[in-house]
């Protein structure tokens, strides 16, 4: 099995540690991973702003770079959801359709495809899980509080395999953090207020680290935490699942 690793543009540039952890986790699970160097972006920043018609360049590149792999895995629920719902190709629609079916967010790839049941990881901290909406409600990584359906949580399932980790409860376990792509600047006031409220919930329950499967939401929360001069850190879930702390 060969996996094509798709790293969102801002993760590549700002959060290489999350990408390295993703790569190492997959390699440790015995998967052959390749990172096609000519990849750029899934096109979501344009599409969510109403400019989906400008994403064909991104789409064609994505198809060219990833069509050959058995699976495409990415440490971002948001990008994966976008690809699943909106990837089309003028040149190779059959390949695009194929990719829509074999692209996975990291967490679901670990739980559903690799069926990971143990991890050699240790992270002795109080951790708050931020459930990014596109992963949670879009990809159904965990049950949402709106639905009257049995509970489940793929990220919690994995975090529970990490030694020493204590998952804290939250008052609102799946409220949006307010990042929302360009929303974070076009609706600055509401975006920041939403972020602050999420952070308050985590802090009130004693989080030392806030984690999640989408770095974009965490980047927004980190920006607020650092402005507040807080000691609380954000870490991508891959970094925690790959952690070897004493």
């Amino acid at each position, binding site marked *: 099995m060969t996996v094509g690793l798709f790293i969102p543009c801002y993760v590549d*540039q700002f959060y290489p540690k999350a990408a390295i952890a993703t790569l190492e986790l997959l390699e440790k699970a015995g998967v052959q991973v390749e*990172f096609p160097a000519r990849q750029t972006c899934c096109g979501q920043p344009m599409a969510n*702003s109403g400019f989906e018609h400008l994403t064909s360049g991104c789409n064609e*590149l994505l198809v060219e770079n990833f069509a050959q792999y058995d699976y495409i895995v990415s440490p971002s629920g948001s990008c994966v959801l976008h690809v699943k719902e909106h990837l089309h190709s003028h040149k190779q629609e059959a390949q695009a359709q194929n990719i829509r079916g074999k692209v996975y967010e990291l967490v679901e790839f670990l739980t559903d495809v690799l069926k990971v049941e143990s991890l050699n990881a240790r992270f002795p901290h109080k951790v708050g899980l931020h459930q990014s909406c*596109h992963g949670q409600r879009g990809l159904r990584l965990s049950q949402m509080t709106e639905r009257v359906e049995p509970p489940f949580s793929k990220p919690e399932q994995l975090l529970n395999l990490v030694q020493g980790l204590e998952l804290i409860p939250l008052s609102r376990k799946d409220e949006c953090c307010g990042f929302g*792509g360009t929303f974070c600047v076009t609706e600055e006031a509401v975006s*920041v207020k939403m972020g602050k409220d999420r952070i308050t919930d985590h802090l009130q329950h004693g989080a030392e680290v806030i984690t999640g499967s989408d770095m974009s939401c965490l980047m927004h929360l980190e920006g607020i935490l650092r402005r507040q001069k807080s000691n609380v850190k954000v870490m991508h879930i891959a970094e925690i699942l790959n952690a070897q702390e004493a």
Partner: protein
Amino acid sequence: MMGAGKTRDHSALADVFNQDEPRVNWHDETLWFIRQKRDKAAFAIPDWELLRETASQIKAHTLSHLSQYLQEFEKNAQANGITVHWAADAQEHNEIVFSILQKHGVDRMVKSKSMLTEECHLNDYLARHGIEVIDSDLGERIVQLAQEPPSHIVLPCIHKKKEEIGEIFHEHLGTEAGMSDPQVLTETARQHLRETFLTRRAALTGVNFAVAETGEFVVCTNEGNADMGAHLADVHIASMGIEKLIPRREHLGVFLRLLTRSATGQPITTYSSHFRKPRPGHEMHVVLVDNGRSVQLGREDFRNSLKCIRCGACMNTCPVYRRSGGHSYKSAVAGPIGSILAPNLDMKKHADLPFASTLCGSCTNVCPVKIDIHDQLYKWRQVVVQEGHVDAKKAAGMKAMAAVLSSPATFKLAGKAGRLFMRRVPLLVNNSFNPWYKQREMPQPPNESFREWYRKNRKQHDQ
């Protein structure tokens, strides 16, 4: 990219709303409390999701046979002795209501809650024609006295604290200054409205459901004000959007179970009143209003928005609505559902609303008739941009971004250059012109990007 100009409206008003953070907290918590009450009520019904699916399908069926059911309703309503009117738009609706009042020489009317009349701006229209309208829903009466529009479709004055309501009552209804005891205020409103009910000869109500099979309609209220108004008046006018139709009476069992559980967490409204025929010597009118609905019905991507039963659950759950308030939407129906309905009525005016969302999807999953609200928000964004209702600077920024992201070579350079630039001259980025930086630090750029690290550490897979 920063969305100035045409798409700033909701954002600018939300900015003002957020100047008073404790008040935002209060507004958020008040509505979240209602969302939690909804959760308790919904989770008490094991078949909740099946109920939603059933409701959604009944509405889908009705919408796809709408003309047939409208005609069936008209025929049966007329057979019951109800006068049926058809209004193509808001103006026609208002004229029809006015002509009925004129015919009876009535210049004062009592009105129970109807978002449709808000949409048609009926009160203003009638006021200009010398007719006084008193809203009898307590919340609506309060905002009417305050000369404000409702901020929520189910809870019209949810944005007001009880102390503020006390001030309004002091000014208009003569309560003691500083009185904010809900008991006293409610009793004052009751006495004030009782006089209104007893002296008005015409009453207008909204319609929650109209049954094609029987020609009857159902009005749901908690205060019984629709009944009080309609029973005491000689003329009862009921205004309804054409999407309020359901085929059969038995379908009410599905919708009445969902409506109030979703709205407030009550198992059912205190009053679910069926109106079927006028009493002898009295008149009953139904005004069927289109006002853009048949246009929306023709928009395949947005058709499902007409399934809405106006429960308000999508507003209560919306993290943006809770932190920006209903008035920031400048539309009779605010929140997520308002944001997919309003662009149909006036795309230019409401071009900002599809962007007033993070697309978190909570609305879609709380909606009792399963409207794909957040997907429609995404689709409206595409339409709004295609139709040119977007700031030129934003469009240029998007084009530039798309060009960079379509070229791997430029992307590599832009990313690296961007990071170097930010690390060396942070002040240029970290200034108040950057909305990100106003209340957030910028991400700290690392020494190397992932792709640089990868080239050094995993040579064998590089291409």
